[in-house]
């Protein structure tokens, strides 16, 4: 078809179609609640573990279960992510950006836990997970998810409260924030999906 064969009426029609399609292509962030439940439980476990080691109730060798738990959570996310991707009909650019943020944040937290433990010893290492989870939740919250906003604030509050709590319970406070904030957000997403 040549340029001459597209008249003004057809051009108008084409532009209106483009406008309609773009207006309908609202970017919705589908966060996948099950991932949050798994990572919320996993990170809370790690934090409680650090607290128990810190309190002398467990031997430091128990910390070797941390990479195993993280690897299990990561394996779940990868497998479940692939399954979900097969069922989905569309994958938004926003969704891809979210996964980049998610993996970068959790990946950095993993590196801190495994390789930066001299700078972030004990509970500091666990608190890094709270920071990572707060970033992820607040990122989702920025895109209009009110539950994620509340959950992100909950995790931040748990960080602040843990900072002023006695050393004997600080880890439990952090773990509660992860479980209620991160895991709880995932559960609420799953319930909303039902």
């Amino acid at each position, binding site marked *: *078809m040549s340029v001459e064969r597209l008249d003004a009426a057809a051009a108008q029609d*084409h532009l209106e179609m483009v406008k309609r399609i773009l207006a309908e292509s609202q970017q919705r962030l589908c966060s996948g609640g099950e991932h949050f439940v798994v990572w919320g439980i996993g990170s809370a476990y790690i934090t409680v573990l650090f607290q128990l080691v810190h309190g002398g109730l467990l031997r430091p060798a128990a910390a070797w279960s941390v990479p195993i738990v993280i690897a299990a959570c990561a394996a779940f996310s990868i497998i479940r992510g692939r399954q979900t991707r097969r069922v989905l009909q569309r994958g938004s650019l926003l969704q891809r950006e979210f996964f980049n943020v998610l993996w970068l944040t959790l990946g950095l937290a993993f590196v801190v836990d495994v390789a930066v433990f001299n700078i972030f010893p004990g509970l500091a290492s666990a608190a890094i997970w709270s920071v990572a989870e707060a970033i992820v939740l607040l990122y989702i919250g920025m895109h209009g998810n009110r539950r994620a906003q509340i959950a992100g604030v909950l995790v931040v509050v748990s960080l602040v409260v843990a900072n002023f709590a006695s050393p004997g319970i600080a880890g439990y406070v952090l773990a509660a924030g992860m479980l209620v904030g991160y895991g709880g957000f995932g559960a609420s997403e799953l319930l909303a999906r039902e």
Partner: protein
Amino acid sequence: MDELLLSKVRLGVVAELLNFDWIAFSELARSLDVSNGNLGAHLSKLVDAGYVEEEKSFVNRRPLSRYRLKKRGREAFASHVAELQSLLKATP
């Protein structure tokens, strides 16, 4: 003006893909309300021109095709829409 995008279906495909990482064939057909055969022919032209990338796989033993807009297609779309707008402005 981009000759390939003078087709309303092909322009619609590119517009659909613009804000998405990828879209499945069946979803494109449903969204644009075109037959599978018609859409397949248009998509082939877009793939051949390097505007769109095709990814074929099997899910539960059923073939699944997904499409993704390439940089070349994104650029062609932007300039084509700009020219459509110029055409309208130039029309009394």
